[in-house]
């Protein structure tokens, strides 16, 4: 863990084992998980209440393919950053719904670890110092702002 302040993170994921593992991983890395939501309504309620620095959002939630709507709504408030974590990377729209980028499932521990480190650097003090890890695909506007050669 670097000297950077830890991130407050919201997990929006409908599969319990995946959310459990992600929460454990983020906590072990020194960050604070402010909540775990399984549906869009739960996600928005938690978002309003916790105002996290970052939300990891799956595209498919308990109430259907509503992850994009959650992302757009969160980004409209311009308070929190969003990163998608999904097995359906091709369903992320061209504008990434305002998200920083997407991490494709299945990801490895090493993959999510390097993506988290890069995101941490970029969110706390942009642009990130490290190179863009293969596990993270940036949205076009972030690619421009955070551009570094790929790992």
């Amino acid at each position, binding site marked *: 863990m670097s000297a950077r302040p830890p991130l407050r993170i919201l997990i929006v994921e409908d599969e319990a084992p995946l959310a459990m593992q992600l929460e454990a991983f983020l906590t072990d890395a020194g960050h604070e998980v402010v909540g775990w939501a399984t549906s869009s309504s739960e996600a928005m309620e938690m978002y309003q209440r916790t105002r996290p620095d970052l939300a990891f959002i799956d595209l498919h939630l308990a109430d259907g393919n509503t992850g994009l709507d959650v992302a757009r709504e969160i980004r409209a408030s311009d308070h929190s950053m969003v990163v998608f974590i999904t097995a359906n990377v091709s369903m992320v729209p061209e504008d990434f719904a305002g998200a920083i980028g997407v991490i494709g499932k*299945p*990801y490895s521990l090493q*993959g999510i670890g390097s993506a988290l480190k890069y995101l941490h650097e970029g969110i706390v003090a942009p642009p990130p110092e490290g190179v863009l890890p293969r596990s993270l695909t940036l949205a076009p506007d972030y690619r421009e702002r955070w551009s570094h050669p790929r790992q």
Partner: protein
Amino acid sequence: MKSVERFGREGVRGHTHAFMQAAGNAVTLTRGHFLQTDLHDREVANRRLAQTNLKLRAALTEQQLLVDEIDHRVKNNLQMVTSLIVMQRRSSGNPVIREALTSMLARVEALGLMQRRLYQSGDLARFDLTEFCRELANELYAAASRPELQLQLDLDSVTVPAELAPPLALIANEIVTNALKHAFAAGRAGTLAISLHQEAGWLRLTVADDGVGIDAAHATDADVCNIDGESASFGRLLVESLGKQLRASVEWSHAAPGTRVQLSMPVANTSAAADTR
């Protein structure tokens, strides 16, 4: 009067024929009722052709959606398996069990990377072994956190039929992981060289290290895998079995210093697999 060219009912057989007629030059007739009959036949055939095309397009779209859905589920399930292994490992206080779960996690993650790369390429029939090896090696090397070690990659551009991807992914994971884990004592500098070549009818994947050598490495491996009295190296057994499945040879040899593992497979094997699809 115009010249005569009659499309008899007998000549209109199926959509293809009708389409060719409809796409041909303008038809000229001598008698009015022939014109009406022929135009009617062609209109019917064209309508049927359009309907068939619509149905085919819909079937194709549906098939693509099904493939996407299966891909999505496979990836999600693989992520689920890795999550369960990670959580189980996290809750275990037994170092031997933790070690075994770490090895299992690496195997499932290698399959996950394989699945991701297979669908990423857009060609479901072929697997880009080169890019897989590059990403796997970089990931395992980074995960090892051994900056004193050097990773050297020398990879030809090689693709194989998709059905060979799982055994090749598991073998590559096993031999690279094994080298990173056992070849170099803590703090010892060294080089791990991975090469992939396809030449003279052979595909060869080689992992060579300049570490402690094969005997010392195996002694360590057997100790690590000694769970419930099972003393054989599961990793090595897995590699040999997968090699047999691929009809490939896997040789472990002294590299003086270090160890060299080479998988050799006739390129014909990969073509034969493609032909039986």
